[in-house]
């Protein structure tokens, strides 16, 4: 177990005008267990408490309550030891715009105790691994967003830590760069590094991570592998747009092959284990009741359906 957190809480006291403070409960009791060598994601909308959780685990801020051990060390009592064993890549990136990436890699290596030679060797290794060798000497401000992001991850890996935190690693990247970065994160895992990443992208969590927690309003609402979480909901989702949503919902809830029905304005989602075979039955039943469809679609259940099931709202609307 590379991360073990129990009942983590963080309450901020935000100043609101003169002398008034407001308590903000950013994290309200989070339990986490991350295995060695896995890519673990914390998925949730903006403001859910993902970053605050990671910042507590990376020893930036002390938890208000709860305990956590990272790489075998207590995040409060042995913060310095934790720091020696983690890489942390913030949302902001932490790349110095005015200096070339190579200088920053070398400095990061030297302050971690490497000799000049070792730091140079490590920097060369990372530049090659992230295809940055050719742009290593250009001031970082002249690099593209994707290149800068790769530098920021390389910077977090200089000490070859067994665990690396990636806070929203692909926010703001174009699809091509995102896909490349996913490959790089997988390559990290293949070399034995454990990764804890936060994301508000459903597809990212789904495609990239081995296990995940879904975080909302500072608590963990679901935990598991992407496929097990989706299986909990159902295999497929039939989304119907029609008049008389409530009638349709009542009818469908009585059908044995329908696991669950959720409705929104003019929209109905029916969860089925086997969509291909269930759909003809479903259509027949609706027709018998004279319910006319405007549109229909059959999709595989996604993590958004998981989120919807646990929080009552869609992640797309939650931000």
């Amino acid at each position, binding site marked *: 177990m590379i991360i073990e957190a129990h009942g983590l809480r963080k309450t901020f006291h935000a100043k609101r005008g003169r002398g008034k403070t407001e308590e903000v409960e950013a994290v309200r009791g989070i339990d986490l267990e991350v295995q060695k060598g896995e890519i673990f994601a914390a998925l949730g909308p903006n403001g859910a408490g993902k970053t605050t959780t990671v910042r507590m685990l*990376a*020893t*930036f*801020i*002390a938890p208000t309550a709860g305990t956590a051990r990272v790489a075998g060390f207590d995040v409060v009592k042995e913060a*310095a030891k934790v*720091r*020696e064993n*983690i890489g*942390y*890549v*913030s*949302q*902001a*990136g*932490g*790349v*110095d*715009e*005015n*200096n070339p990436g190579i*200088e920053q890699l070398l*400095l*990061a290596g*030297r*302050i*971690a*105790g490497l000799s000049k030679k070792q730091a140079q060797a490590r920097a060369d290794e990372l530049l090659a691994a992230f295809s940055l060798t050719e742009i290593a000497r250009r001031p970082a401000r002249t690099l593209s967003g994707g290149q800068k992001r790769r530098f*920021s991850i390389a*910077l*977090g890996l200089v*000490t070859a830590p067994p665990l690396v935190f990636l806070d929203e690693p692909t926010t703001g990247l174009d699809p091509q760069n995102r896909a490349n970065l996913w490959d790089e994160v997988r390559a990290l895992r293949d070399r034995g590094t454990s990764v804890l990443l936060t994301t508000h992208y459903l597809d990212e969590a789904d495609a990239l991570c081995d296990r995940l927690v879904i975080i909302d309003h500072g608590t963990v609402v679901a935990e598991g592998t992407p496929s097990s979480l989706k299986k909990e909901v159902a295999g497929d989702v039939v989304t119907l747009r029609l008049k008389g949503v409530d009638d349709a919902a009542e009818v469908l809830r009585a059908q044995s092959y329908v696991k669950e029905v959720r409705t929104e304005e003019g929209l109905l989602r029916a969860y089925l284990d086997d969509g291909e075979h269930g759909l003809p039955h479903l259509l027949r039943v609706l027709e018998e009741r004279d319910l006319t469809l405007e549109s229909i679609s059959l999709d595989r259940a996604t993590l958004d359906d998981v989120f919807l099931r646990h929080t009552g709202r869609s992640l797309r609307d939650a931000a």
Partner: protein
Amino acid sequence: MIRQTSLFLGYELRFLLRNPVWPLFGIMQPVLYLLFFAPLLGKTTASGSMPEVLAMFTPGSMMMIALFGSLFAGFGMINETRNGVLERLAVSPAWPPAIILGRVAKDMLVLVIQAILVMGVAILMGLRIGLPEFLIMLLLMAVTGLFAASLSYGLALAIKDENGVSQLVQFFAMPLTLIAGLFLPVSLGPDWLQTLARFNPLYYGVEAGRSLFRGDLGDSTIPIAFALLIGLALITLVWSMRSLRRLAA
């Protein structure tokens, strides 16, 4: 500790060597003052000769680089509070004070080099100064730079806003300049101004400089200036290091 500080210093110096032009702009202001303002001051000294005028005016013009150069040193750090650089360093194995000390050391070095250039110009114009006085003056500039740069980093880390810091620095720089007698000795002014000047650490810096340039090594303003500037530098250094630590939370 020294290793870590020198690593950060080296990083900053390599940046400087890649962009060596900017500190040169910093000395334009005092050099212009030496060239075009000092000649106007003939009547303010006893003999009115150029060497005497320069001995009076050069220390003030050197303090000017500290005020309008080193006091803005923290500017670059404001951006680093947002782009995650300081955050990254804060969870790195770096010894936290080294992050500030390395930069302050660079600013001191820059200021000393600028001071050498300004004194060089003054000497070309006719200033006469002995080697010990010259070296002590450089030491005085180094201490001034230590104070001004640490203050600047402290402000940057506490305020974290470019607009706020620039306004605040301007707000303080102007009265400090006037009350220190940067351009003309306050001894030319009324008693109240002289009394007021005694509460301005910069005044002692300028007066110590003038004593040195007169060759008056025994003047009391010299130890006072060193003690004051070193004391203030230590306070502001501790303050900026604390602000850096608080930044994470």
